[in-house]
Each structure stands twice: as structure tokens, then as C-alpha cells.
């Protein structure tokens, strides 16, 4: 077929052009030896102003927390739009893959007893210690959601209550915005975490409202991802 050959030739040409452009980009990049002003400012201010040692969390949950709110909104839109997209259709050509039997099998069933506590503890740790070491709400929420997905695989018959999860997620979202308004009223601006006492740098209770925001974000992300996974389960 000539059409296929032309398609492959044009694709190869486009890819070669991209590869050339990329190689020029890599060649032109010089590794910097010092940070830019903005980054240096964040690294200086995050421990001073917010009393948060993890600067990335400081940026995500304080300086650019409005971005984070937008990202959570994107996740919410995905979870909401998957409902109508994956609804059963009137006259499908291909029937669905049959659901597996009730029993997931001995190995998976025993495995989920061994691994789920580990996954849960790790996710909770990543959420709660996000302001002190590597981690945060998004990452921990994703870990918790993998645990929930594992639960769905291990217990085929179990039904995740999508409505309850959506309600939890909406409630947490309202609390998130409420924290933001608290920041607007009692501190410098929307989602400013400094309306709670800053605490001592490096202690568990520190960083103003950042651990609280991190916890809310973790619950919200975990609930949203669980709804997405449950929708795909059909």
C-alpha cells in the first residue's frame, strides 16, 4: 500500500526534524552554577516566612497554592467527565470483557492483606510529613489511591461507593477553599498558611496551615483518583 509508505516516510521525516531540534536544544544548554533570583528567593523565604524546610511543598501549598487548587479542579473535571463518557451505550458493536468471577484467587487475596497496610502507612506518612521531607498531598494521595485500586482488584465483588467518595471529595474541596479564605482574612492573601502559628522549623507541628492543607489535598486527590479508577472498572 503506497498510502502507508507515504505516511511512514513523512513520519520519519517529522521525527528526524524533531530529533535535530532536540539535539540543538541539548547542545545549547549550559548547566548553571547558581540559582536564579526567584528560586533563590523561595529557598531563602520558605524556611523564614513559612517555617517549612521542604521548599517544593512551600511553593506548591503556599506561594503557588492557587495553581494547586486549579490542578485539583482539573482532576475533579476528569472524574466528573468519565461518568458520562463510560456510560453503557445503547447499541454497542463489541460487548464488554466479562467481569471476572467473585474470587480474585488465593495469591492476590493473601497479598492484599500483606501489602495494603504497608501502602496505607506509606501514603499517610508521605501526606503528613510532606512539609518536612520529600512528599506532599498529591504524592501521598496517589499512593493511597494505588492501595484502593489494589483493594478493588483483590475483592472483585466489592463496590466502591462513588457517591460517598464524590461527597467526601466535594466536602474536602469546600474545606480547602475555606482554609484559603481564612488566609485571606487573617493573613496576607488567599491560601496564605500563616494564619496559624508558624511553629519551630523542622517540627511536626509547624508551617502554619500547610500540614492541614496537605492533609486535605491528600484526601481529595485520593478520593478523586479512586473515583476515576472505579469508573474504569465499569
Amino acid at each position: 500500500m503506497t498510502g502507508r509508505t507515504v505516511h511512514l516516510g513523512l513520519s520519519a521525516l517529522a521525527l528526524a526534524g524533531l530529533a535535530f531540534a532536540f539535539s540543538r536544544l541539548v547542545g545549547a544548554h549550559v548547566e548553571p552554577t547558581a540559582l536564579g533570583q526567584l528560586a533563590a528567593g523561595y529557598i531563602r523565604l520558605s524556611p523564614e516566612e513559612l517555617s517549612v524546610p521542604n521548599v517544593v511543598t512551600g511553593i506548591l501549598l503556599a506561594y503557588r497554592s492557587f495553581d494547586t487548587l486549579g490542578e485539583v479542579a482539573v482532576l475533579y473535571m476528569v472524574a466528573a467527565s468519565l461518568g458520562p463518557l463510560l456510560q453503557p451505550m445503547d447499541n454497542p458493536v463489541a460487548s464488554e470483557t466479562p467481569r471476572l468471577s467473585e474470587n480474585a484467587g488465593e495469591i492476590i487475596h493473601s497479598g492484599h492483606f500483606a501489602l495494603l497496610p504497608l501502602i496505607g502507612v506509606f501514603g499517610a506518612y508521605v501526606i503528613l510529613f510532606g512539609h518536612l521531607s520529600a512528599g506532599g498531598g498529591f504524592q501521598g494521595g496517589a499512593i493511597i489511591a494505588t492501595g484502593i485500586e489494589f483493594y478493588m482488584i483483590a475483592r472483585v465483588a466489592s463496590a466502591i461507593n462513588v457517591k460517598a467518595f464524590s461527597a467526601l471529595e466535594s466536602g474536602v474541596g469546600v474545606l480547602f477553599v475555606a482554609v484559603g479564605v481564612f488566609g485571606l482574612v487573617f493573613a496576607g492573601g488567599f491560601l496564605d498558611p500563616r494564619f496559624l502559628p508558624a511553629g519551630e522549623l523542622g517540627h511536626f507541628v509547624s508551617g502554619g496551615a500547610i500540614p492541614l492543607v496537605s492533609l486535605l489535598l491528600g484526601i481529595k486527590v485520593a478520593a478523586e483518583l479512586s473515583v476515576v479508577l472505579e469508573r474504569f472498572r465499569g
Partner: protein
Amino acid sequence: MTALPVSTVLMVTGFGLVLLGYSAILIHRNILKMVIGFSLVDSGIAIIVVALGYVQGGTAPILDADTTAATVFVDPINAALAVTAIVIGFAVTAITLAYAIRLYRLHGTLNVDAFTESRE
């Protein structure tokens, strides 16, 4: 022999993943493989964004007991942007997979040729 700079290694990896993803999108006829291609592009771009923020001899931007005044940190903004990119990548993957399932139900196949032929 001098070692390659860390950011160059990372950027070559990232751009390689992006190229691999685009080639999967362009060459394969199966929608699932195209979705994998999009996912590869996302991962590659996240790696490039982090690589651009690398500072020579830098460590993670987390202050702890080992931190001194001389400690060099990598750019924290790029790490924050990478988190954003990963979340958007997840959203793209979820939506494209949902459309793939819908198309499979409508046409009984995942081959894109079946969708273009019906238009002619």
C-alpha cells in the same frame, strides 16, 4: 575522560522518551499504543523540566540537619512544575483511555484505520 554533566544525561533521556512517544503516536495504528505514546511524552517532558532546574552539585531543596550555608540546591520551581505536568498527564491519559473504550464499543476494534474508512 570527563563525565557528562548530569543535566545533559537527563535531557537526552527525556528528549529520547519524547521522540519515542511521538514515533509511537505517528507509526502505530492501535489506539492503546498511541495512548502509551502520549504517556511517554508526558514522562519525557517531566524529566526535561527537572533537568533544566539542575544546578551543578546541587541537592534536593529540602533543608535538614546536613544543610550548611555552602549547600547548593537545585531549582525548586521546576520540581513544583513537574508535579503539575504529571497531574495533567494523568488527566490526559484517563480521558484518552475513556475515548478509546467508547470507540471500541462503537466499532469493535482499536485500529484507527477502521475509523477513517467510514468517513470516505
